[in-house]
């Protein structure tokens, strides 16, 4: 019958219209600024720098190895490495970034920087309302805006953060054990102070453990 197909289609439209009042599956929109979906844990938008403790300067994990700067596909990271060094979380002397800028306008949220960073120093944020009326300064984020505490990371990515924390604790424990062993060896050596050959042999294992491999 001519018109049957049209009527069939209208039945579907009606089914969807009335169905949307009773079925969640048929009405999926939310009224955005007031109502929000919770973002899944994996969701990513823009990188931030992690710091331990309360001081964003002293606790900054980044050691300015510049791997992320090199690997970032649109090259939107700019790092200037320090001349001096500061101790990292296992007590090893490491450089730190004097300047660490990311251009929000250029970053394409690809997460490559997070993947290549060997120091767990950079992670992805979920914050997506980044618009600003200042298109020059407002879109270039410096170390100050980028640094966020580990607690924040734990809050937005609980599972991932727990894994990272555990790994870092193990690294710290291993480093402490190694340092303690070296300390004990040095103490034994000074108290004995006997053969010079033995002393040089112990001396080789004395420098602190290399826990992370930068390249």
């Amino acid at each position, binding site marked *: 019958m001519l018109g049957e*197909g049209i009527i*069939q289609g209208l039945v579907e439209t009606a089914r969807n219209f009335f169905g949307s009042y009773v079925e969640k599956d048929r009405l999926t929109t939310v009224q955005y600024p007031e109502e929000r979906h919770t973002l899944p844990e994996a969701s990513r938008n823009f990188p931030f720098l992690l710091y331990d403790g309360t001081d964003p300067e002293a606790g900054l994990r980044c050691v300015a190895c510049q791997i992320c700067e090199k690997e970032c596909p649109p090259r939107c990271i700019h790092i200037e490495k320090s001349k001096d060094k500061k101790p990292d979380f296992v007590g090893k002397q490491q450089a730190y970034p004097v300047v660490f800028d990311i251009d929000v306008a250029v970053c394409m949220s*690809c997460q490559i920087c997070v993947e290549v960073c060997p120091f767990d120093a950079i992670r992805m944020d979920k914050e997506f309302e980044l618009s600003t009326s200042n298109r020059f300064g407002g879109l270039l984020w410096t170390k100050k805006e980028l640094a966020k505490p580990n607690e924040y990371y734990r809050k937005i990515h609980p599972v991932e953060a727990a894994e990272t924390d555990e790994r870092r604790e193990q690294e710290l424990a291993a480093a402490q054990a190694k340092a303690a062993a070296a300390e004990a060896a040095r103490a034994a050596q000074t108290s004995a102070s006997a053969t010079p050959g033995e002393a040089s042999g112990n001396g080789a294992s004395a420098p602190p453990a290399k826990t992370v491999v930068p390249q």
Partner: protein
Amino acid sequence: MSGPVVDDPIAVKPIAGPGEIMEVSMGPHHPSTHGVFRMDVRLDGERVVRLKPVFGYLHRNHEKIAEHGAYLASIPYTDRLDYLCSMTNNWGYVLAVEKLAGIAVPERAEYIRVIVGELTRFQNHAGLIGFLLQDMGASGTPLMYAFREREKILDLFEALSGARMMCNYMRFGGVRVDCSAEWLDEVRQLVGRLPRFLDEFESLLRANEILMARTQGVGVLPRELAISAGVTGPLLRASGVNYDIRKVDKYGIYDRFDFRVPLGDHGDVYDRYMVRLLELREMLKILEQALRDIPEGPVMDPKTRLRGLRPKAGEAYGRIESPKGELGFFLISDGTGNPYRYRVRPPSMINLTILEDMCLGQNIADVVIILGSVDIVLGEVDR
């Protein structure tokens, strides 16, 4: 209004009788082009006598950027080729790199690739049908239904890869992160719900008399022309050529799945619409089988060097059946950390080359739906 242009390489024959040829520039900002694309149309009354596709407005130098970056750095850029189907774009590229460097992919990663690949195809086809119907004047309704389901798939992608559209998920040697059991359960639930959506989506307009009158016999692409022009994907299959790279090449693990390849008879707009509708059903079959068989295990070959990959000198061509056709990546390595040559074979651009042949003699209003049935994404056409 202008007469026939004299310096035209393909001269338009002067028409007999009163009247003039009118040249209309459709685009670059025309709602029918779904992007920045221009069609230079010459009209004799309502009838198309010549049509020249003009593209390049979205050119971003994709290939040269990739030649100056590491192999890893190109993956997020491939997301942005066909920006509706980032997962399949990733897949084509990593397949080429895997061939080039001889990297093996773990079993579980292959299954995850099939699952996300078919979900991508699903949301692409559903969206395309919605857009096509929108172009025909069914404004809003079918498109919104399609987008409602697409949204659910994009949510799954976000939970898996972190982003809805720019997934950047696959890596040579596997996939970036493993999927959880809950995620797989959610996919299973979704796949269980999709047949109902398909039934409704089909009966919405499939037998609609107006739609049939509008699309049948319009924009016919003859089989021989489709083959000789290198057309691929649903466009080719609607012309009756049985050519699906999932069947021909059996890349990944596609030899393990049981599915059929729908074919058209006439190669008109209606056939292209129907072929896609039928393909949607076949995808669900593949998804069900993949979700049933997915094994446990690693998702990444531990020996693969993502950063600083230096394949031996040589060349490789990786191709997949992307939702739009044959998506190929051709790579030449000279042994350094970045490819010596990187070339994309974009299906939409090659499918676009026969646009004029399909449109000649048709009405101007039909050009819109013929273009819609080709399924182009300008990110891929212009690269």
